[in-house]
């Protein structure tokens, strides 16, 4: 009964959305604000990747909210699973391929993640993508060689410092130039590593923070 009602309701919503979508043709150029971003983004920011300059400079406040949400996720999960006694089943030790593979691959995965978030303003990628890759490296480490682990206190400190440094950089913009998140460092030559003002700094902060948080979440869920 419940399934039939929900089905009918969804069909109605779907038909309504069809009529609404007729107004938004696929593939048409409907950018108003984005035209300004693409044409002026290079001059105003110095970062070659326009998506990065949108995420960190034009809409940097949303990024601040986003790292806050990730922080809430990690803290909330810690609160929900607080004092959770796990029954220690004996974990089968991983197979030989996994053990050697993980020892070998782990530093390379970390390097890939760090590369992606340092070059966030030049190539596709950025802090969040790089942080997710770092976290998957830690997951591999946990599954394969489950002896070494980073302490929980260290993860907490990196998380808090990451968020605080982001806000401090923004506040420096406020003090020096009267706007929060103002891009106050010099914009270097295009397409080199030192370019784009404060954008690389912000992305480095975000990358480390996201990597730490996602690893923390994975550890807690695994416990």
């Amino acid at each position, binding site marked *: 009964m419940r399934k039939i009602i929900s089905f009918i309701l969804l069909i109605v919503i779907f038909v309504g959305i069809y009529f609404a979508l007729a107004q*938004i043709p696929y593939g048409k150029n409907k*950018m108003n604000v984005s035209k300004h971003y693409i044409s002026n983004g290079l001059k105003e920011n110095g970062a070659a990747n326009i998506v990065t300059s949108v995420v960190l400079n034009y809409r*940097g406040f*949303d990024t601040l909210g986003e790292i806050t949400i990730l922080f809430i996720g990690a803290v909330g999960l810690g609160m929900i699973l607080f004092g959770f006694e796990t029954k220690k089943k004996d974990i089968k030790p991983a197979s030989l391929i996994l053990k050697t593979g993980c020892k070998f691959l782990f530093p390379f995965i970390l390097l890939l993640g760090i590369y992606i978030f340092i070059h966030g303003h030049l190539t596709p990628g950025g802090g969040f993508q790089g942080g997710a890759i770092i976290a998957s490296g830690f997951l591999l480490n946990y599954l394969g060689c489950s002896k070494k682990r980073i302490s929980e206190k260290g993860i907490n400190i990196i998380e808090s410092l990451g968020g605080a440094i982001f806000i401090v950089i923004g506040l420096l913009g406020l003090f020096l130039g009267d*706007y929060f998140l103002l891009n106050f460092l010099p914009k270097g030559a295009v397409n080199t590593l030192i370019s784009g003002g404060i954008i690389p700094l912000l992305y480095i902060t975000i990358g480390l923070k996201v990597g730490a948080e996602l690893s923390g979440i994975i550890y807690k869920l695994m416990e």
Partner: protein
Amino acid sequence: MVNIIWQNPILLILVPLGLAFLTPIIGLISKNFVKYVPVLGMLFNLILSIILLPKVIINPIIISIAGWKPPFCINLFVGPVGIIFSILISLIGFLVAIYGINYIKKGPIERYNILYLLLLTGATGIVLTGDIFNLFVFFEILCISSYALVAYNQDKNGIEAATKYLIQGSIGSAFILLGIGFLYGLYGTLNMADIAQNISTVNSPTLFIAMALFIAGFGIEASIFPLNAWLPDAHSSAPSSISAILSGIAIHIGIYAMFRVLYTIFGINNVFTFLAIVGIITLLIGEMSAFKQTNIKRILAYSSIGQMGLIIFALSIGTISGISAGLFQIVTHTLSKSLLFLCVGYMIYHTNSMELSSLKGLGKRMPLTSFLFTIGTFSLIGLPPFIGFPSKLSIILAGLKAGGILFLILIILMLCATVIEGVYFFKIVQIIYFREPEKQDRIKPSFTFLLPAIILAILIIFIGLYPDLIHNILNKSAGEFLDKLSYIKTVLGG
């Protein structure tokens, strides 16, 4: 342009956020200090909001982030409505944080305080922003913190209520994001003033779908009639300080977000009549369901649903007096419901049970607490010397002034609902005062509980006796909500 750094409204969002980020480090240094961090943060917010209030009434302040001009950047629109909400949020946040110093004793205290500060940051961000995706991000901060905080007690009821709340809340957020997607696909911009400027150039079906998605999405958080199944469970299973925050702040912010989108972006049209009817239906269902409950916190939760219906009805009348009456009712409900939840929390803490029958005779055992509880109930019903009376009176006057037979019927239904509300609240007061208690000892209340409750009670009585103090401010802010053209002109510069 604000010249003094310490009076920049963006600090209203940044200071609690920064404190929340630094709390784990503070917790490493000294575990006991963590309890006082929300108190300090909210005190700063309260003082800054009160300082900004006279400036903002003259002229709303626009703060652009990262130095570009709107609409190419995110901007904060600090208007009278925003500052009033910010004052309310920081006041209740400050008082409940004081209450929480001694109320929250076991469990991960540090994480509780972090999430508490972040919830209030999200709420402050919603009322101060002028960009619709930023609204969504801060709305998510609010919702996700509340999902985690409802489950703080980790008992059976808490986890189940948090799960139901999470599933329904995230479907609501999905709807809002769909609505934002539609609006962006039509207009190519995310700034509320820019969308409001362009809104007349496209015709109806897409806009109707977008509006319906926004009402459904924000309505889940604001608990309109078919979408409020999560509220009784969540508000009654959370720890009482969190119930006070949820009932006093979170659902009001849902209503604010819905009406900000409806008024500023979409403008006035027939959907408001529909919303007025839905509001009265919610009111009736909320009050009638509260009538047959025996769990004191569930009674208060259903009463919250009813009051939300009343506020939605007032805000959808569509005139300046209607909006000002709705805002006044929001102030009333925030102050009274928080006071009620704080008192009830304290009573439950001592009697260890949430049933009505366990409140027998508490009038003799905890006289001050029962007295404060009674002040809260009388002001919710709308009896004269308390704040509920001028607020309900202004709703009735606004409804009658709007004219029409429909509003007359709705006002009569609203009065019936008030009568039902009076009946069950009087029943509770009677149980507290006029039945014999089982034990005969007197319980002395502690300082951290008394201080917030007494401050709330004093505000209730004071504003109830001199309602004109706020009436002027509320009238001016109602003007801001309605006046779409001046909003666009202020943000985009003519």
